[in-house]
């Protein structure tokens, strides 16, 4: 069975780098793709280059599709990079991974599957890319810096409760589908 690809936007890559879990994310949500425009926007995340070189993050050059991307009929408040992530998710019929509310809303409006970093951490736990203990530490950090991660504390608490509940169940070790 072909697995649905994942498309990362720049925000989630930067957040993943901040938490030091890029590698774990790529092990979990794969195959991982990013447009060259989003990669460039997240370029300050040094660990990213290692993931690219290791072949864990596939960089898709937008190339001559720039025009099509700029002409997408989407909300004005999206950047060219946001559009490129949305475009790639639609091209690959994949799941868009973003921590940006505006991009998320637009993607859902267009019928795309979208998830954020909290969901991803939860999935990492489910397939053992992250230990429960590590995931809970990350959630604590995100709760402390909730504004920076653009999430509500309540949402973090909900995910924490689910992970703690999950911890008592048998684990399958499967990849995210």
């Amino acid at each position, binding site marked *: 069975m072909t697995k649905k690809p994942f498309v990362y936007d720049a925000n989630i890559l930067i957040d993943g780098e901040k938490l030091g879990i890029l590698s774990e994310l790529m092990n979990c949500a794969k195959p991982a793709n990013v447009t*060259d*425009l989003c990669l460039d926007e997240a370029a300050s995340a040094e660990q990213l280059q290692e993931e690219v070189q290791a072949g864990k993050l596939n960089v898709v050059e937008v190339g001559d599709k720039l025009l099509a991307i700029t002409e997408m009929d989407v909300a004005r408040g999206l950047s060219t990079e946001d559009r490129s992530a949305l475009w790639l998710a639609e091209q690959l019929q994949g799941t868009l991974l973003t921590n940006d509310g*505006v991009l998320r809303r637009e993607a859902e409006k267009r019928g795309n599957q979208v998830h954020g970093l909290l969901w991803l951490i939860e999935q990492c736990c489910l397939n053992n890319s992250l230990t429960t203990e590590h995931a809970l530490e990350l959630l604590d950090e995100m709760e402390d810096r909730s504004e920076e991660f653009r999430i509500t504390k309540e949402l973090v608490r909900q995910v924490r409760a689910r992970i703690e509940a999950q911890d008592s169940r048998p684990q399958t070790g499967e990849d995210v589908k």
Partner: protein
Amino acid sequence: MHPYFAERLKALRMRHGLSLEQLAEAAGGVVSKQAISRYEKGEMMPSSSVLLALAKALNASLDDFFREPTVHLQEVNYRRRASLGVKRRKQIEGEILERLERYAELELITNKHLPFENPIRHMHVGDGDAAELAAEQLRQSWGLGSDPIQNVLELLEEHGCKVIEVQNAPDNFDGLSAWSDGQPVVGINAAFPNDRKRFTALHELAHLLLGLDGEHEERKENERLCNRFAGAMLIPAKALEREFIGERKHFSMQELRLLKQHWGISVQALIYRAKDVGLIDDQLFQRANQHIRRNDLHRNEGLEIPHQERTQRFDQLLYYGLSEGLISYSKAAHLRGVSLTQLQEDVGKIL
């Protein structure tokens, strides 16, 4: 072809004062000057990798290449020294245009546009007394009473005037005034001290509101009237009389420094102002100016004012757009001219 790309690329290149060849070089050799020329003629579009290289070379965001050019500058009037060359002026105007375009896009996304109305449009200002009266009327219309203005730049923004602080401007550029599709625009040198920013902004406002820009022979007089208006906005004649305790034969620099701190107006402008409203005679005025020159105070008065002059409306709109879910973080970073990482950190600090 994209409808705006060719024009935008050329405008960005011109703003940086680069030739086609220099841009090709600055882009790291990933594109030839011939190819750039074809992009600018609208004959072809670059690939994404070439666009990224061009954006880096021009210190632009990708969105800057695709934004509709809706903003135009008209009736541009400079407050500058003669040494400010045409090329540098074009670069300054280019930066202001670019910032105005980002501003206009932000207003469009957030649906927050401030209309402008000139409350003194019917006044004819032909001499100093009329300039004084115009300032008095404007202060009244804007509800300022006779108190010091805390933040001139913010005041102008609140009344529909776009204020752009020009970064990395040369020392011989103080400010400019212009119109942009019915909106007044004031550009000022961001590096100047706050008292100079305040005076310059109000001087430029005078050009816009009083409609004084005439031919060569009138220009010097117009500049004087704009200075008079700016001084009267900063410290009204009655307030100055009260502070000076009537006409004077002598005064100390310490008195003027105290007034500077309270009213946010330079010591030099205060001396002119005192002469303009008849509180000191020509002799005292000359003596004070000699003192200023002898002590090199005309270059640096050495005393900062407490008034923090900062434009705020753009950032306010930006954070409003982020909070209300109207604008993505990536878009906000581009409009603000910072990296996405930087914006995320800034938001974390602010909230």
